[in-house]
């Protein structure tokens, strides 16, 4: 069976993408706001829960701290997940472009 976090939700997707560079939680939220052109603004509880969850599954890890804030970064396993998701999404995108019409019909 598929991993329970797959396919990635928009929130999880953005967090993994943002944490390709090491950031603390609030900075990740700001980065995501910028990356999504203001369309994804994470709330505190959502961000906290997502970080806990991704950390638990070993897709991100704590790499240090800045004062009281913990800094997180994506792990190798997390990058593999992003690869899988990238392939899935590019396939769907290719269907949009019509490059693979209904071959079997």
């Amino acid at each position, binding site marked *: 069976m598929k991993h329970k976090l797959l396919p990635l*939700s928009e929130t999880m997707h953005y967090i993994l993408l943002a944490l390709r560079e090491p950031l603390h939680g*609030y900075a990740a939220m700001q980065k995501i706001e910028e990356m999504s052109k203001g369309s994804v*603004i994470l*709330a505190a*509880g*959502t*961000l*906290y829960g997502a970080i806990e969850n991704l950390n638990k599954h070993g897709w991100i890890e704590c790499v240090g701290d800045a004062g009281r*804030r*913990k800094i997180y970064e994506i792990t190798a396993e997390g990058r593999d997940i992003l690869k899988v998701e990238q392939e899935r999404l590019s396939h769907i995108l290719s269907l949009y472009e019509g490059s693979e019409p209904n071959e079997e019909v």
Partner: protein
Amino acid sequence: MKKFNLFFNIEKEEQWLNGQLQKGYRCTNISGWGIYSFEKTDKRYVMRLDYQEHLSKNQFEEYKGIYEDFGWHYIKGGWLGGLRYWQKEEDGQDELFSDRQSKGSYYNRLMGYSLMLGMLCLFFSFMLYKDTGFSELYFKGLWDMEGSLFWKAFLFETPFVLLKLSPAILVVVFSSTYYKAYRKYTMLKEK
């Protein structure tokens, strides 16, 4: 200003608190026995209740730190662990959860909370009623009394009977809060 109130439903409590805040108050303290302290303010505040249990010291610091970065101020309180009270100045980003999944797991945690309290009350009820059942709630001689004496004794005893019945009543209350959280949880999960 201090106000007393008892809630068995987190969402009702949140609504009531925000009702007070809209009258121009902010919450300063919540004691374990249902006493809420407020003070007058010119600013507009909003409160949200979260439920998180079993946070280790480290986890709690991380949890609190992230919420504080978003402008939430932690108010200690709750008569049982797990309930977390957050308050902030209203600025348009006033929710704790911004997506369906995390809102869903919030209701899932509330289900666990109601279930735990419900089971606890069920256990108390069992201990309390297992020997006597419900038949001896009232003093036995009461049923032989007549006329106004009966009614006086009956009215006098009723509050004590309700007190004795409270664990059973609470089982029903917590079952209903469980069901409400369950409904919201499945609604968020379905789509």
